[in-house]
């Protein structure tokens, strides 16, 4: 192209330019239009000597576009259905103006980057004497289309285009088939028209989005109210979900992406927010009647609006809690006898609602938390049924599962499964320390009386508790297992020692030596008892052996936990009996004669009366002994004889009643021991906190103590206060001088 400046006659040059413009805009004979030629022409006009004509050219182009747009407007308005024809014209216009803008690149540069005119301090905002701002030809074309087509029709012709657009979308909403692509083109032209201004969406929002949302509001406001009054909630929710899905599709069919959220929000307001209470109120019945599909819809709808699901969570939690409490209530005192119903029914309940959470509520963390909250209430509820003391009941449940020869008839894998599920309930127990105490009691009995199902089952239960509560929680339980292992070694060692010293007496002796602090015994003080003479030798031998092996230790014998397997020779058949040591001691008295009073037996065994009567009773019940006067109460003067006519089909018998189950006193003692442990735990935690924080207000201290202790138990505030007072007395901490409310750590 030639850059040389020429002398130009503007009118002639523009006439030539305009001829090509007409062809471009009509899409008639575009083949004969030379882009390069037009580009050169624009350059030549802009650089004409002696005076360049760029502003004049710009104004002339504007004039051409105005005329063209006015023509288009007439053409559009001549149709009944204006939207499709508008879309066609708009498409052409946008293509043609695109070319025009490229051809006018040089002109754009001169107009937009207009050099400062000497002597004129202000940059002129408008081109020549027109009110067109300094913008490129494309922006100019957009402005002209906006003013001469869109706004002209809006103000003079009842907004016919937009009216028909809204009408078409309404028909679509009512299910009539529409050609939505032309509608979308027409709508998106509003975005394109403003794209080169500093408010690119202004026209679109003002002319389309705002009125559109207002129409949606009116349409769905009415529809939802009618639906709600004529349909069931279930149908209402279904149509809400349907409508919201449709509007989602309609959004992408018609609207610019920036409107989608606002439009959907308006639909949600009309269909959900405005009628939320109707759904929320019905939700209680949906849960109670297990209308899972309805629950799912209620959740899907209400989770879309702010705070929508909060009342659902509350109903959900309340309902589960009620069902759980009903279960507890109906079990009554049967829980005390058999913990299985309590545990298994609550686990089933938990499984059920956990599944509902995942199937119906998409595992929404808030619903899972509601199940947790409900179960924390249920499991820790003792007000509904005083027999439902979960730490104790659940510990006893594990015992029924972990004891061998139980009557449950379950396979080992079934038991494993049940035990892994019981941890679900365990996690909800507030007083985990209390559970630990009860668990250790039943575990101790299983270990001491060798009644454990299997070492593997015990170990896997411990590891479950460990993973739920940490190593520290199970360390004391673990120490019991350690003692069992040590005792096995000790027995081997003792046997070798006996043989080495030639002390063997043909009596098979075994022992568990337990570390006092690791086992749940209230006192290591042995009860009064005279060990039968024939066994004393073993005791002496073992004591000698043990003293040699460990120095500085003393042994306390727990006679009431000892057992003896004996052979009975006085009957027709030979029987082998498995007895408690006390039972044996009583029977052994009869080696010297056939008939003794209880008092005489007491003389020899030194057993305390309460214990002795219980043992004698168990032997009478087993028919080994006969009470002289069967109808009277068993007392010190009662006479007892050996039952020489004893007979049983089996020759190996285990005589029950040797050991008492946990008495209420023992349970109380356990609870008291736990209280004491808690006091120590709280005090230790106060000292730890104060040591690191130095100064703390009462409230903060209480809060931090609760936080530290809550994995083990829920500490109550009076107990914390008491512990603080004790530590004040011991001068671990003191009150701050200037404030009654604050404590200071004493170094």
């Amino acid at each position, binding site marked *: 192209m030639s850059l040389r400046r020429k002398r130009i006659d503007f009118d002639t040059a523009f006439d030539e330019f305009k001829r090509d413009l007409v062809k471009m805009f009509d899409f008639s004979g575009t083949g004969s239009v030379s882009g390069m030629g037009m580009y050169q022409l624009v350059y030549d006009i802009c650089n004409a000597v002696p005076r360049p004509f760029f502003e004049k050219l710009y104004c002339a182009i504007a004039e051409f576009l105005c005329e063209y747009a006015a023509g288009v407007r007439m053409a559009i308005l001549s149709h009944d259905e204006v939207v499709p024809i508008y879309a066609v014209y708009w498409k052409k216009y946008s293509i043609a103006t695109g070319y025009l803008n490229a051809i006018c690149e040089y002109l754009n540069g001169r107009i937009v980057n207009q050099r400062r005119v000497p002597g004129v301090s202000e940059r002129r905002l408008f081109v020549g004497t027109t009110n067109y701002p300094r913008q490129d030809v494309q922006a100019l074309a957009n402005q002209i289309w906006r003013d001469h087509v869109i706004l002209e029709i809006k103000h003079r012709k009842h907004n016919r285009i937009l009216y028909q657009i809204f009408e078409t979308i309404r028909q679509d909403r009512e299910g009539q088939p529409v050609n939505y692509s032309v509608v979308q083109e027409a709508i998106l032209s509003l975005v394109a028209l403003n794209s080169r201004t500093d408010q690119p969406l202004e026209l679109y929002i003002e002319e389309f989005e705002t009125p559109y949302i207002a129409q949606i509001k009116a349409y769905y406001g009415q529809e939802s109210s009618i639906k709600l009054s004529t349909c069931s909630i279930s149908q209402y929710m279904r149509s809400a979900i349907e409508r919201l899905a449709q509007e989602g599709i309609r959004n992408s069919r018609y609207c610019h992406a920036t409107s989608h959220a606002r439009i959907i929000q308006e639909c949600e307001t009309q269909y959900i927010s405005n009628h939320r209470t109707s759904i929320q109120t019905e939700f209680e019945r949906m849960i109670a009647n297990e209308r899972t599909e309805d629950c799912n819809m209620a959740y899907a709808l209400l989770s879309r609006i702010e705070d929508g699901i909060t009342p659902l969570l509350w109903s959900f939690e309340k309902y589960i809690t009620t069902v759980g409490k009903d279960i507890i209530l109906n079990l009554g005192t049967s829980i005390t006898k058999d913990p299985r119903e309590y545990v298994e029914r609550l686990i089933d309940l938990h499984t059920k609602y956990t599944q509902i959470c995942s199937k119906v509520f998409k595992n929404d963390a808030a619903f899972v938390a509601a199940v947790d909250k409900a179960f924390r209430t249920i499991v820790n509820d003792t007000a509904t049924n005083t027999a439902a003391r979960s730490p104790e009941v659940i510990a006893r449940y594990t015992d029924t599962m972990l004891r061998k020869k139980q009557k449950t008839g379950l396979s080992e894998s079934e038991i494993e499964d049940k035990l892994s599920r019981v941890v679900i309930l365990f996690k909800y127990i507030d007083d985990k320390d209390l559970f630990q105490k009860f668990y250790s009691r039943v575990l101790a009995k299983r270990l001491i009386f060798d009644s454990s199902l299997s070492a593997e089952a015990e170990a896997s239960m411990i590891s479950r508790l460990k993973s739920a509560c940490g190593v520290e929680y199970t360390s004391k339980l673990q120490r019991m297992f350690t003692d069992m292992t040590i005792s096995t070694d000790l027995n081997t060692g003792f046997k070798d020692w006996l043989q080495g010293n030639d002390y063997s007496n043909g009596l098979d002796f075994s022992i568990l030596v337990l570390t006092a602090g*690791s*086992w749940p015994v209230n006192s290591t003080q042995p009860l009064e008892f005279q060990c039968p003479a024939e066994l004393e030798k073993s005791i002496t031998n073992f004591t000698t052996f043990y003293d040699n092996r460990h120095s500085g230790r003393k042994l306390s014998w*727990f006679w009431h936990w000892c057992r003896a397997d004996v052979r009975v020779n006085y009957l027709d058949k030979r029987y082998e009996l498995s007895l408690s040591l006390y039972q044996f001691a009583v029977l052994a008295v009869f080696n010297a004669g056939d008939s003794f009073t209880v008092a005489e037996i007491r003389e020899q065994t030194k057993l305390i009366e309460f214990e002795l009567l219980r043992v004698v009773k168990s032997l009478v019940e087993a028919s080994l002994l006969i009470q002289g006067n069967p109808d009277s109460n068993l007392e010190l003067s009662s006479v007892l004889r050996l039952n020489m006519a004893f007979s049983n089909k089996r020759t190996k018998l285990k005589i029950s009643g040797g050991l008492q189950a946990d008495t209420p006193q023992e349970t109380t003692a356990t609870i008291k021991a736990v209280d004491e442990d808690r006091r120590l735990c709280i005090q230790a935690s106060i000292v730890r906190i104060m040591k690191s924080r130095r100064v703390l207000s009462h409230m903060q201290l209480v809060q931090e103590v609760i936080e530290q202790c809550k994995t083990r138990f829920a500490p109550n505030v009076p107990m914390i206060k008491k512990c603080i007072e004790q530590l004040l007395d011991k001068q671990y901490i003191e009150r701050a001088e200037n404030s009654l409310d604050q404590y200071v750590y004493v170094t």
Partner: protein
Amino acid sequence: MGLKIKVKRWHTVAFWEWNSIDSSEVCGICQSPFDACCADCKIPGDQCPLLWGKCKHCFHLHCISKWLETNNDGICPLDRQPFEAAT
């Protein structure tokens, strides 16, 4: 006639405690009972013995050793007087 009842096998249970201290008391340092071991040991007993100071305070040997090693100026943690082991 010999014994009517003869023991074949018997099984006993006993607890051991330290001879010279109430086992249920706790070590002032680790707060574990004396008949349990210190925090670093697994098994109580000879591997984790006790140590008395002349001040009559008793600790797990491991606990008091660690205490004295870690910049506590060799004082007893309970009475804050110089700690000397009783012999």
